[in-house]
């Protein structure tokens, strides 16, 4: 059916691995997914809910799991591990060891009789050891692949010879103990490592001794409806509902052994605490933290909500230990507040927010492959190629690159899919399921990218390098966007030359058509077949472009503040200005004795309740640059929470090392900037630790101003795209579909999504391109079976349908008539029920038929006597 040559190997069947597989398979490539456990889904499947929308990850991803297992272009190898990889990019030879499942998946009906009879009870690792499972088991009822597995280590057939109870119990004769381990050799073109993370096992906090000290993952399982407690929040020691729970942050993160921040713990603790609060309003939930690092889209709001609405208590303090309370299973916590006052509090339960470490097996594998790892064993990547490892042809995504959350893992997975495709000159695998109903229309194999910043350019290149024509619409007369003002990434790479190179590539690419000074005027159509009119300011003519997909990458803007004498004193600079000064006026910097950075200018304030994510790292980066130019300079960084998440933590400790002074301020005690009669700048700040005011005489002040959404109202209207409360575009699903819009065929990437650093923007750009290719590479535009239609005789053009359609599938033509675009309509029927004149019809869901069904079903029971 398909040629193995040119197929791709994905290692790790967690959320990232699955996503990478699907994107590749949907683009027509053949993928092997190697997963070491018996089921795919990874750690995400264990989670109860995900922030910031409190979704059940399993419920949402179930379809993807199933799709992955049943996709004609994907072969899932569970219970498998990579033994050896030889060869090089484009022509790897991988040897996989597959351990036997002992249960024939095709025969297994998951009736469960085997497990019922199985005498061997073992701790259920899916439930983090809380609760038991049998030696023959299914991880959870809808685990994929959906078939039982025998855990050889605990199976009495193997340990005590000869137990055959399950085999006898199985009606389908699905169990075969004689299966042997086998080696599988694969020829592959590229490899994607998506091996995920291990939780840092706490060696302290008496985790092993007190049953009520639990890990964050155990808490997820306790809260999970399918977990060992059925979703009831109870504590392990006595299964009583806890009245007080404490979360301790940075366990196994941000210490001398782990010079990085695990990025996700703050948010998951906030999530857990607020969900716990919502399940029991009387609960006292407290989170002990050093810096609250909630720097993602809508995270700050989520945090504020937990604080203000759910009454979760946030205590800024690191708790060094947990003590037993004699005679109870309660736990005592002693901590010092910011004033140094020591308090003791008793909790029923303590949750340790464990940090993330690269999985040990994966580190071994990566070392064997000669992949460069950093000092914390994360994969060394460049900010400009965030999913490329040091070995050509091998890509990595997810938590192996750096600690990150689900949405970023998914983005990176798509990006890795994109990158690995670019790497390969390969034959595509067998095509699509013939049974699908199709409209026999080929998609327009052209992409439209709006916004010519780094993100837009990367997206364009990804498309063009795969052979698709791309139009890049840029409203100014040059490419590069705000990146032109940046000097370096947090890893120290030179942005300027990167951008230059990128512009060069884009402008000279035969398949990329850059439209300068242009703007979208009108758009129409559906995935695979859009038609857009572009206005170019230099001419009166408009240009009409037919394209199959659209990527929005119009970027963002920075906040122009009036605080802190900005604009009044030339020595109060924005961060761009400092970047410029570093380049142009090092002598002035050499003369400066003191420099103050003020963080969160305009961010995390009532009118802009979100974190701009990049300011903390950028400030420190620039502060370090200043130190390089002038090592004697005194630098003060005034911050609210130091959000150097992930590997950026290294910057923070580096800056401390260099003697940069960090002083925290609170929102209600912002620094005051004053210019004295001689024009000298003074900053006054209340130092929480000292309990006193500090007046800093400084030569310069740099303000880390907020990232604000660009002006994309018009685009939003034209493309019918949703915008969130903060004015950034709203993706289809914050966690699981980070670069897509609800409307098919339109994607977003970069700062138009939310503030983010260049590496994350690039991986989004690649991810968006990967998604785009899944549409562009199709032979036919597929549409949904059920599409709404309109009886124009009844229609009064009341606009209800156009207003209500979640996908913007209904448009009103110039004639005042509604028209349903079949490729956009997904057949939900929402318009049908609301149509006031009953003009709207959904073929398979007609009002009459449903009412008939209704009547039929309401016939009395058989044998039911009224």
């Amino acid at each position, binding site marked *: 059916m398909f040629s193995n040559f040119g197929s791709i190997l994905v290692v790790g069947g967690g959320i990232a691995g699955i996503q990478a597989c699907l994107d590749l398979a949907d683009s027509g490539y053949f993928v092997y997914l190697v997963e070491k456990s018996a089921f795919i889904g990874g750690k995400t499947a264990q989670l109860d809910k995900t922030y910031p*929308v*409190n*979704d*059940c990850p*399993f*419920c*949402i991803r*179930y379809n993807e799991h199933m799709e992955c297992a049943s996709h004609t272009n994907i072969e899932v190898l569970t219970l498998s591990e990579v033994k050896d990889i030889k060869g090089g990019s484009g022509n790897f030879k991988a040897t996989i060891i597959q351990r036997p499942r002992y249960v024939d998946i095709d025969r297994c009906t*998951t009736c*469960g009789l085997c497990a019922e009879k199985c005498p061997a009870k073992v701790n259920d690792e899916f439930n983090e050891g809380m609760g038991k499972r049998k030696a023959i088991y299914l991880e*959870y*009822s*809808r685990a994929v692949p959906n078939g039982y597995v025998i855990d050889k280590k605990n199976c009495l057939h193997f340990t005590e010879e000869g137990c055959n109870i399950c085999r006898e119990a199985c009606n389908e004769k699905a169990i075969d103990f004689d299966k042997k381990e086998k080696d599988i050799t694969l020829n592959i073109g590229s490899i994607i490592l998506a091996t995920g993370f291990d939780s840092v096992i706490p060696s302290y906090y008496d985790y092993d001794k007190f049953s009520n000290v639990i890990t964050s993952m155990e808490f997820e399982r306790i809260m999970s*409806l*399918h977990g060992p407690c*059925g979703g009831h929040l109870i504590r392990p020691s006595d299964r009583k509902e806890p009245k007080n729970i404490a979360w301790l942050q940075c366990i196994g993160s941000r210490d001398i052994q782990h010079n990085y921040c695990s990025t996700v713990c703050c948010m998951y603790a906030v999530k857990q605490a607020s969900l716990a609060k919502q399940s029991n309003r009387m609960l006292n939930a407290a989170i002990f933290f050093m810096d609250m690092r909630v720097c993602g889209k809508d995270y700050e709001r989520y945090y504020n909500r937990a604080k203000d609405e759910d009454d979760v208590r946030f205590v800024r303090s690191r708790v060094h230990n947990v003590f037993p309370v004699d005679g109870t299973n309660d736990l005592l916590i002693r901590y010092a507040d910011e004033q140094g006052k020591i308090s003791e509090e008793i909790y029923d339960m303590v949750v340790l927010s464990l940090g993330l470490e690269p999985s040990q097996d994966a580190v071994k594998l990566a070392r064997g492959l000669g992949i460069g790892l950093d000092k914390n064993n994360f994969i060394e990547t460049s900010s400009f190629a965030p999913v490329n490892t040091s070995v050509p042809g091998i890509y990595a995504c997810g938590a192996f690159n750096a600690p990150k959350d689900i949405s970023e893992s998914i983005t990176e997975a798509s990006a890795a899919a994109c990158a690995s495709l670019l790497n390969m000159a390969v034959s595509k695998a067998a095509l699509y399921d013939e049974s699908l109903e199709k409209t026999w229309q080929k998609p327009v194999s052209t992409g439209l990218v709006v916004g010519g910043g780094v993100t837009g350019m990367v997206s364009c290149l990804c498309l063009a390098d795969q052979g698709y024509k791309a139009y890049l619409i840029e409203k100014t007369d040059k490419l590069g966007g705000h990146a032109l003002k940046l000097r370096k990434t947090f890893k120290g790479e030179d942005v300027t030359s990167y951008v230059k190179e990128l512009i060069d590539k884009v402008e000279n690419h035969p398949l990329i058509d850059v439209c300068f000074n242009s703007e979208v005027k009108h758009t129409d159509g559906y995935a695979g077949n859009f038609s857009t009119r572009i206005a170019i300011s230099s001419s009166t003519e408009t240009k009409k472009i037919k394209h199959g997909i659209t990527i929005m990458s119009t970027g963002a803007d920075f906040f122009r503040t009036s605080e802190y004498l900005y604009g009044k004193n030339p020595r109060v600079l924005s961060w761009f200005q400092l970047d410029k000064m570093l380049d142009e006026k090092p002598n002035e910097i050499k003369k400066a004795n003191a420099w103050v950075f003020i963080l969160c200018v305009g961010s995390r304030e009532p009118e802009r309740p979100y974190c701009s994510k990049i300011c903390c790292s950028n400030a420190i980066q620039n502060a370090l640059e200043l130190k390089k130019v002038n090592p004697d300079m005194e630098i003060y960084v005034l911050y609210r929470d130091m959000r150097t998440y992930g590997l950026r933590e290294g910057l923070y400790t580096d800056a401390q090392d260099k003697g940069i002074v960090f002083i925290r301020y609170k929102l209600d005690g912002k620094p005051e900037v004053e210019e004295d009669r001689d024009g000298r700048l003074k900053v006054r700040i209340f130092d929480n630790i000292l309990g006193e005011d500090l007046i800093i005489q400084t030569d310069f002040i740099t303000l880390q101003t907020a990232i604000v959404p660009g002006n994309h109202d018009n685009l939003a209207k034209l493309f019918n795209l949703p915008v969130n409360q903060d004015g950034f575009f709203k993706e289809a699903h914050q966690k699981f579909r980070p670069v897509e819009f*609800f409307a098919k065929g339109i994607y977003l990437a970069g700062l138009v999504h939310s503030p983010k650093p260049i590496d994350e923007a690039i991986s989004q750009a690649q991810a968006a391109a990967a998604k785009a290719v899944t549409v562009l590479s199709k032979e036919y535009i597929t549409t949904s079976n*059920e599409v709404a239609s309109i009886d124009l005789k009844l229609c009064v053009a009341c606009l209800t349908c156009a207003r209500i359609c*979640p*996908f913007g599938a209904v448009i009103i033509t110039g004639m005042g008539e509604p028209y349903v675009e079949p490729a956009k309509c*997904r*057949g*939900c*029927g*929402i318009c*049908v*029920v*609301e149509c006031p004149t009953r003009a709207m019809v*959904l073929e*398979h*869901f007609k*009002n009459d038929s*449903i*009412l008939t*069904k*209704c*009547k039929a*079903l*309401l016939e*009395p*029971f058989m044998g*039911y*006597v*009224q």
Partner: protein
Amino acid sequence: MKGKFEPLILAFCCNYCPSCSADLAKSAKLQYPPNIRIIKVPCIGAVGIIHILKALENGADGVCLMGCLEGKCEYSTGNFRAMKRVQYVKKLLGKLSIEKERLELYNFAAAEAYRFCKLAREVTETVRTLGPTPLKINNSKI
């Protein structure tokens, strides 16, 4: 001849998560009362006021809507609309002096077979306690 009252409940069930749960319940051979009759709809947002009313008019003792979890709607906001709509219909039922408890909206995740069964039992019990729909009682008087 009077037997024990067995309520008839019509469940509009979104084709996504709740149907998954219902199917899962079936495939796991979990027991739920036969009183629940399920109509699958593409989205719970596609169930109109009229559908609910018609169900009651046609003699359902109870009606329930089963949608996906909040924020989880495959069609973005269908379940949210259903929620608003149910509130509205409850008001209408008030006007008709029909117990509002006969109508309820539930939100499901995809794998909540147990919860599905549990709710099915609960709903049946609730309606059983309410007794037959007032439409039937009075009608039988004629």
